[in-house]
């Protein structure tokens, strides 16, 4: 019995630093979200969803660093997609190349941050709204 308790304590001790890291990441996200809301991080005023460098995509992909596939779950993107995106846009503006249309975003992904008491602006489960 004592052995089991010792093992459990040891396990909890090992898990504690991992929990602390996660909380720190959440804190970073919350700080970034707050900085966007306060205007400390400039994400532009282009609200259109059609613009790949519009506010919506800049917040999620550039500032927060979400991989494209996190939302566009059924589309495959090259690992260097985000790095190349600016050059691609220049190419497309010059009439070369065409990026495939993205699929519909899975809203369940949004729920993680945009739920009530989440790090981002609450869109879901906002009791008392």
């Amino acid at each position, binding site marked *: 019995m004592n052995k089991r308790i010792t093992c459990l304590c040891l396990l909890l001790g090992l898990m504690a630093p991992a929990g602390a890291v996660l909380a720190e990441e959440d804190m970073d996200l919350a700080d970034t979200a707050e900085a966007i809301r306060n205007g400390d991080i400039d994400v532009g005023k282009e609200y259109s*969803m059609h613009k790949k460098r519009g506010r919506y995509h800049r917040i999620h992909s550039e500032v927060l660093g979400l991989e494209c596939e996190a939302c566009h779950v059924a589309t495959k993107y090259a690992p260097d997609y985000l790095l190349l995106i600016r050059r691609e846009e220049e190419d497309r503006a010059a009439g070369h190349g065409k990026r495939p249309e993205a699929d519909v975003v899975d809203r369940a992904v949004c729920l993680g941050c945009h739920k009530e008491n989440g790090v981002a602006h609450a*869109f879901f*489960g906002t009791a008392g709204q």
Partner: protein
Amino acid sequence: MTKLVRVIDTKRCMGCRSCLAACYVENHLTPGSPWNVMMEHEVGEYPNVGRSFVTMNCMHCEHPSCKAACDAIGVKAISKNALGVVLIDYDKCIGCQYCTAACPYGVPQYNNEIGTLYENGEKTPYEAESYAKRHPTHRKKVKTVEKCTFCWHKLEKAVERGETHLIGQVPEYTPSCDLVCPVQARVFGDIDDPNSQVAQWVGRKQATQIKKEFGTRPQVYYVLEGGDY
């Protein structure tokens, strides 16, 4: 307190699309941005197969995520009125589509073009009706978002005449999609009235809201195979 809800019995629905047709006629359909759609699924394995039908319109959520997204960027084009109807003001809408991204049900429809149902590009007499004669919810604008209004142009009359207690009980004050169903698969009314058909269906048939995990508390309930979840 009146709280308007719709209950759709998917076990009765046979996928005839009468509700879709009624909506399109009643609400000046813009091809490409329908307010009411039918989803079909094949179920079972051969030889025991079948099709299930789910008609989808706006859920008029108690906590609408579309409104939250719209308000967050200060546009405030979406409102929820005292009867619980969620409406979009086309004059305020900037067409950003944040509401379409936030809605878990894929309801808001971006109006990319006000087309016509005629192939030759001419407008039908119905489409040609002047905007001055139309209800504000039917004065559609290109590059804005639109969606089901629970036929607000009909409910509004009940409010003006002080007859909200008749909503869902007389055709004049009932959304058109709910009037035309040939198999009585959908009802509309006040869920706070225990004698209303919607209240009885929600209780007796174990009707449920879909995608509850989003916490938006939809005001459209579905009777599903297997009951509530």
